[in-house]
Each structure stands twice: as structure tokens, then as C-alpha cells.
């Protein structure tokens, strides 16, 4: 039977957590309380709020969690604002999984991994990091460099400080944009911080954040000897269908929804810079 790509699942929001002043994490299952579908870290889902709209959101939780999926969502448009005012028990419609995901079981295997993220950009890579932690023996060192506007805006702060920081062979470097009284850590933008940390250019890099962070960090990594083939990112473009038909998320001849959202920078380098 052909899959009906436009007919969504019904998802139930089981739990809502406030991560930062404008980011909430939504735990979603089917009506039967089970996971709606299996996914690969880096894949997305179309969250549909009938009558409000729909948004392509990356799946924040690791596929190794057996019972549910989580979406960490920043309030910044109609759909996300609506979600932020929703309560547990609310049903939504979901189409997914969408996209290719990160090459966690191929290219990343056996590598030391550097994760660079800014703001809500940690959400899509959160899934990758927790997947790697669940299959720890397949990866070398994991280093996470993460920055946000302020301490309050660091998403998953508790998990970062109480779990990731305590893991063996894992390093978490946090930074915020402006000094504040309850912060004795680093105060700097992410790109110069990455340069300062001087990561080994043999590492494989996963980057996600605002375009300016990605652009400047990529430049700094190249100065340190990293090559485009080693650096992966996940792209964001407006989408409607998520299955390569509606025609709006292309970068050159590639569609972010079906050929991406994960690209390496050597792949992006061959495409027009229209993103």
C-alpha cells in the first residue's frame, strides 16, 4: 500500500516543560501512549495545529527513548505561540519523520565529535548527542560548545550541567553573550570561543545556530585546519509538504526537506548561497 504522506498522525501532548523564558519542551505520543514513529537524530516532523497552521520542527529527543518524542520549541510565530499556550492532554496532528538526519551510524562512528550550537540551535543536536551517549562505545570524545544570550536562555541547562558535564570523555563549554551576576563562566560569542578552545582538527563537527554563528564559526574552524567535509549542519527553510513536492525549500537543485535538512559544508559549497 502506498503511504499517505499528507494524512497526519494524531499526537497527544503528554507533558510540557519550560526550558527558558521562550522555549518549552513538548513530550508527544500517540493516543495509545506509545511513540508515533521511529526517527533518526536530526530528522524533523511537521506539527499541525488545525486552524492555526503548521511548522517543521526538529525532533529534540533521542531515538533511543522508547516511549515518546520531544520537541523543544522557541516561541516565535503563530504555531509556536499557540503551542506555548497549550496544556497537557492537547492533541495535535503530526506528519513525520521528515528528512535525512545525521550520519550517526556511518560517518560519525569512531570519531571525536565537536558540537557547536547557539540558542535554540541546541534542540536538533540534542537528539544526536543523546543518541551518541546511548551508544557511547561507537564514538570518541564528545565536546559541546554552546552559547546563548544569557544564562536563563541556555536550553537544557540542568541536563548540560548535571548530566553531560559529568560524563566521561565528554566536555561541555558554555558561554553567554553578556555578563550577569549569577554567572561566573565564560562571557563571549560562540565563534571566538570555539577558536580559543582550539579543538583538534581531526574532530567531526556538528553545528547548529543562527546563520551568523555558523558563518563565523566555520571561518574559525577552517583557520584551525578543519575541512568542509568534516563539518555538518542542519538547514532551515520554509516548508509546506515536507516530501519534496511543494517546491519552496530548495537550495539550488536540492530540497532541504528530502535531501536535507542535514548537509555537510562541502555539499553546501556546491550549491548557490541562497539560505
Amino acid at each position, binding site marked *: 500500500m*502506498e*503511504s*499517505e*504522506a*499528507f*494524512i*497526519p498522525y*494524531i499526537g497527544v501532548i503528554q507533558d510540557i516543560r519550560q526550558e527558558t523564558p521562550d522555549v518549552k519542551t513538548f513530550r508527544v505520543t500517540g493516543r495509545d501512549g506509545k511513540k508515533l514513529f521511529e526517527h533518526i537524530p536530526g530528522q524533523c516532523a511537521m506539527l*499541525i495545529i*488545525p*486552524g*492555526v*497552521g*503548521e511548522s517543521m520542527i526538529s525532533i529534540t529527543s533521542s531515538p533511543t527513548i522508547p516511549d515518546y518524542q520531544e520537541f523543544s520549541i522557541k516561541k*516565535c*510565530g503563530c504555531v*509556536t505561540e499557540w503551542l506555548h499556550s497549550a*496544556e497537557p*492532554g*492537547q*492533541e*495535535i*496532528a503530526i506528519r513525520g519523520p521528515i528528512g535525512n538526519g545525521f550520519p550517526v551510524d556511518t560517518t560519525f562512528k569512531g570519531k571525536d565529535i565537536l558540537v557547536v550550537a547557539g540558542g535554540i540551535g541546541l534542540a536538533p543536536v540534542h537528539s544526536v548527542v543523546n543518541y551518541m551517549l546511548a551508544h557511547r562505545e561507537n564514538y570518541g570524545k564528545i565536546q559541546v560548545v554552546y552559547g546563548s544570550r544569557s544564562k536563563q536562555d541556555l536550553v537544557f541547562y540542568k541536563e548540560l550541567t548535571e548530566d553531560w558535564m559529568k560524563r566521561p570523555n565528554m566536555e561541555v563549554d558554555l558561554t553567554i553573550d553578556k555578563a550577569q551576576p549569577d554567572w561566573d563562566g565564560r562571557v563571549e560569542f560562540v565563534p571566538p570561543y570555539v577558536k580559543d578552545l582550539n579543538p583538534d582538527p581531526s574532530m567531526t563537527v556538528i553545528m547548529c545556530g543562527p*546563520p551568523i554563528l555558523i558563518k563565523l564559526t566555520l571561518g574559525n574552524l577552517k583557520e584551525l585546519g578543519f575541512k568542509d567535509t568534516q563539518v555538518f549542519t542542519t538547514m*532551515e*527553510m*520554509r516548508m*509546506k*509538504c515536507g*516530501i*519534496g*513536492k*511543494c*517546491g*519552496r*525549500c*530548495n537550495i*539550488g*537543485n536540492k530540497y532541504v526537506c528530502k535531501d536535507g535538512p542535514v548537509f555537510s559544508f562541502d555539499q553546501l559549497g*556546491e550549491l*548557490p548561497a*541562497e*539560505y
Partner: protein
Amino acid sequence: MYTLPLSQLDSFFEAVGTKMPLYIPQDNTSGKADFVRWTKGAHLSKALKTVRSAKDFFLPKTETLVSYKLEGKKIEIDDPRKELEDFVVFGVRACDAASFAIVDNVYIKQTPVDTYYKNRREHGVVITLACTDPAQTCFCKLYDIDAADPKGDVSAWITSDALYLNANTDKGNKFVEAALSLSKQNKLSLSESDDKAVSAQQKDIRAKTEKLPFVHLDLAKFAGSNMMNVFNAKLWEDLSHTCLGCGTCTYVCPTCMCFDVRDFDTGHGIKQFRCWDSCMYSDFTKMAAANPRLTQKERFRQRFMHKLVYYPMEHNGLRSCVGCGRCLESCPIHMNIVKVIKAVNESSDVPVPTTTKGAN
């Protein structure tokens, strides 16, 4: 091949049209033609082409994808589709018929399949019609489309005194069988024939299309290996300068297949529908945070890059244009794909590629 005296054409349409939905080009009130469902008294338009292409039959302007009923926190989902009836479209020109293969590549051949579109394709019988009098704006020959031998399920030719039909597919054979039996019941003389008259007409059509002004344009520069050079050329600024962003070119184009997905509150529930959209519109790629195609230059460039470079790279060099000429006739500022091809060819900015990767 089968033939029917032209004097019996209206009766033939009546025989078919009373049995199944039949659409034929009919004159509209503005002196042009549209595909309209046959009703008693309808006549086939003599116009060369319909205002909008035949893509409407398979990718309608709007269609409901999913219906939702909301109650408190609960959502009920309903697939609104009903069983489709077989239908016949007569008089599709060679260009429009070629456009179906271009859309099929994306909607059917590329997984996941768009079942909404596929259902319609499976239920529609396409009867094409050779163009005895191609217009100066026609350039299907540039893409190796033969106006004298249009494809589709059944090919048709109309000479001064007869209609000729030739089935190309299983669906086409079934239609011809049905037509033969309908013809018997209605005392019409649809009968087997040689192809002499058709061959003569084909020779004449090919001689005419050969002489059309845009059929020998050079597309060598629009190769996949040349993507970055064409994309980065300075000429897009000038070419797009007067573009109004009205999207008319998109709506009349048989190969434009982009759509938007929106919600409609019926008062009893929500209908999520899709409707034609245009990459020429400012909000086509607009997101909450940014818009990667900020000015008309980027939008304009996208449309032509997609038709001539991006699409061919993904589909064995097949261009996503069929040379129907509708955009040449309908653009309010007289900008069109022919002018774009010529400008790129004349530009020293864009080198002729040495290798042809993907396209050509």
C-alpha cells in the same frame, strides 16, 4: 488508426459525453478557449491553446488534503477523498501532454507518491490533438516535443474533413474500444483507416514548426555543471527589474507545480487544503526569522533556474518547460523564458560549459 468524418464530430462528442465526463476546449466570452465539460450543444474551439494548461485536471487550483474536527483538546482526522470517476480530456496539445511527464517525475516517480495527483492521473484519459497552425510564440520543438505527433493516451488529428484517432496506451486502447461501440450504437462511422492523411498533415506541421522563431535557441549554457555561473550572473538584476511578481506566468504554466498548504475554518471543522502557489511571491519562502529570497531578483531567478537548470539536474536533463508559449502571451511586462535564455546566451558573464553534468 481510426477515422470519423468531421461532420460527425459533435455527434461523437455527444456519444462520449453522455456516457462519461468529457472535457473539450470551448470558446469563452473573451475570445479565448478553456477546457469545459461537454454539455449538449458544445463545440470544439478552433483556438490553438486554452488560457490555462491541462494541468488543472490533475493538479487542481485548490483541493482539500485533510479535514479536521476539533472538540476541546481532541482532534478527529478525516481523509476527504471520494472515489474518482474516469474522465476524458480531448484536445490536449503536445506541449501540455509533455508537461504531465514532468509533473509525474516529482509527484509519482519520486517517493513518497502524491496519491491525490496519482489518482487523478489514473482516472483521466488524455486525448491529444496535433497543432495544425502553431503560433509564433510556440517553441515546443526546442525541447524535442513534436506538435505533429502529440502523445497522451490517444493521439488525434483533425484534417479538413476528418478526425483521426490512434491509441498509445492501454487506457487509450480501452477508450477507442468504447468509442467504437458508442459509435455503432449512435450510427456514427468511426472506422479503421490508413495514416496517409495524417502523415501529410504531420509533414506540413513539422515544416511550420521548423520555421518558428524560438525553436532553435541554444540551451548549452543551462547545464548542471554551469549552475553556479548561471546563478551568480549579474543579468538577473536587470532581467527581474520590471517583474511585478504577479505570478501570472506560474498559473498559466503547465509545468509549474508548487503549492501552498493552508487551513480553512468551515464553521463545522477545519479543512486543510493545498492551492497553487508561486515562487514569484514575496512570502513564498518567508519564515518567522528570515526570508532567503528577499527581493524579486532572487524569486525571478529561482523560477528560471528551476526550469532550466535545477529540475534537469535531478531528472536526466529533462527541462521543466514545454515551450507552450503561454507565459510569452500573458506576462504584463513582456518578460519571459525566451528572453531569459537569450540574455544568458548573450552574456559574457556566463561561460559555455566544457562538460555537461546532469543536463543535456
